[in-house]
């Protein structure tokens, strides 16, 4: 039996998702990892990245900004600081955020500021990418 995995995504704000899925690919801090039913116990921290999950032959996407994932043979629990479903991302705002972050990076400043700008750029790009993908997927 192929079986399913229960994917749960929680953030400090809410329970974002709780669904049976066939496959999950998550952005581990040391590289992406995929989870199929029956995966061994596994605990990983997550970096900024994209979380994909497949259910009923459709891939869905979600942005994850840091967090942890716990994997058991039947369940994946993702505890993210911030997470957003692709459908929920406002693409216009995401685009704006990218531009703003780029400007900040260009403007220069202290190393710590630059680092911050770099991170927000990375976040913004990711959100935009995921939002784009969702839009294509739907049309």
């Amino acid at each position, binding site marked *: 039996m192929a079986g399913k995995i229960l994917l749960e995504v929680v953030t400090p704000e809410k329970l974002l998702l709780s669904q049976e899925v066939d496959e999950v690919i998550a952005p581990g801090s040391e590289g992406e990892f995929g989870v199929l039913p029956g995966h*061994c116990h596994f605990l990983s*921290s997550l970096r900024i990245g994209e979380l994909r999950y497949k259910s009923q032959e459709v891939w869905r996407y979600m942005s994850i900004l840091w967090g942890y994932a*716990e994997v*058991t*043979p039947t369940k994946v629990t993702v*505890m993210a600081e911030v997470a957003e479903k692709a459908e929920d991302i406002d693409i216009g705002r995401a685009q704006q955020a990218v531009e703003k972050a780029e400007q900040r990076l260009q403007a220069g400043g202290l190393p710590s500021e630059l680092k911050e700008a770099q991170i927000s750029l990375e976040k913004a790009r990711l959100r935009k990418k995921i939002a784009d993908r969702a839009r294509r997927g739907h049309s």
Partner: protein
Amino acid sequence: MPSLQSLRRKIAAFKNTQKITKAMKMVAAAKLKRSQDRILAARPYAHKMRGVLSNLSQRVNRTSHPLLQKREGKRIEILVVTSDRGLCGGFNGNIVRKSAEFVRQCETQGLTVNLSIIGRKGRDYFRRRSWPIRQEWTGIFDKLSFEHAIDIGGDLTENFVKGTFDELYVVYNEFKSAIQQRVIVEKLFPIDAATEFGALQSGTQGAAVGGSYLYEPDEGELLNVLVPKHFQIQAYRILLESAAAEHGARMAAMDGATRNAGQLIKKVTLYYNKTRQAAITKELMDIVGGAEALK
């Protein structure tokens, strides 16, 4: 028999009181709504975190991280979560009673107990009775934020590592519904897998124990961030629970007070009217009697 004027004053006073309690009830209801949303949103995350930690604590070598250690507990610390303000019914009374009971229980077992207190009401109570208070946080409920949780969680983890105490229990009001609170005694340190996490996490608990985890990055590094974080999250959740419960309790208490004031007003008004009528009747009788006498 009280004079009519004093009765009128009494009615006016009750009406004023009723206005105040009514206003307080409204304020509490508005605040309740907000804090209720917050706690309901924060709960799943906190519970998942617990689940992960409890799973973890069964598998990892406990000595591998200072915060996971289990020591022979002689010194107990109790974190008592009360409110900063009163007028919320049995909210603080219940907590204080439960804590005192718990302390006595521990002391009869020959354990040393210290208190950490959140909230002005609890602090005042225990200070007046000069119980040993190690640490206190007051005035945080007005502007509750995650910073407070970081502060409190940090202090507790630090003291656990230092060995100030071997076990930590929290006594707080859990927010059950807008009109129901439940006093909860919960063990925070050391993390126990089997006992209190079991019920909550039957899902993950079902997975076979044994077999080790894979970690990425390595175990030590991961635990170093995850475990302190867990305590911050739990502290945050407990604060939110208590805040929501407090507003709920206050709303219920003020609702009751408003209703009681209404009843009193009714009663006194009735009495006032009766007295007034009696006075009129008496006056009439006097006049009639006077007229009769003139005949």
